[in-house]
């Protein structure tokens, strides 16, 4: 089994790219891989707890918590979060906050990097 690091930057909220990222993470964890996830740019929207689960919107909080429970490390870009007004107390349980160097460091030992950085 290997280690997969996902860097998730989707610029478009409502783009389903976050949903895609969590489904990939879920499938990788199910196959026994160690998964790390870095959320940056607009993907830090996951760092605000208390999102109302409307049917019209993706809602990944539940899946994220399950994956954390199964050992996925998930860290959010602290500056990106603060710039959007998401403070420490807004962070969902189990999610870490760090600077960008956390993501860079993960690239050293990971077997694969899947950087989702496009539009």
């Amino acid at each position: 089994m290997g280690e997969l690091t996902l860097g998730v930057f989707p610029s478009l909220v409502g783009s389903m790219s976050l949903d895609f990222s969590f489904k990939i993470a879920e499938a990788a964890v199910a196959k026994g891989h160690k998964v790390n996830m870095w959320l940056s740019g607009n993907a830090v929207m996951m760092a605000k707890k208390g999102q109302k689960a409307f049917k019209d919107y993706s809602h990944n909080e539940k899946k994220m918590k399950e994956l954390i429970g199964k050992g996925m490390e998930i860290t959010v870009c602290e500056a990106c979060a603060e710039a959007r007004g998401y403070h420490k107390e807004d962070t969902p349980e189990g999610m870490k906050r760090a600077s960008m160097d956390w993501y860079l460091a993960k690239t050293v030992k990971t077997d694969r990097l899947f950087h989702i950085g496009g539009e």
Partner: protein
Amino acid sequence: MKLAVFLSDWRRTEDSFERIKADKMGVVLVGNGIYHAVVKENGKDSPVLSKAGASFYVLSDDLETRGYTAAQVNSKVKVIGYGDIVDLIMNDYEKTAWL
């Protein structure tokens, strides 16, 4: 290099795809990239499918989300699931590029 390229758009705004070369290339169509597998604009295959030497994959979940089924997929393209994408990344290719 062994490279897995991901396309998530129908109207593309980069030209890296045309330029990048790889000894082994897999092109994975996800999100709105699935239209390259099912839409024949003016009766023609998407130019994406003419990338020489590449293997093509399309994510079934994203096909069905948009009202398409495996039966409508271009014969050059293999329909796969999320687990298959993980296997492609971890086993078949070494690097990824989300264009």
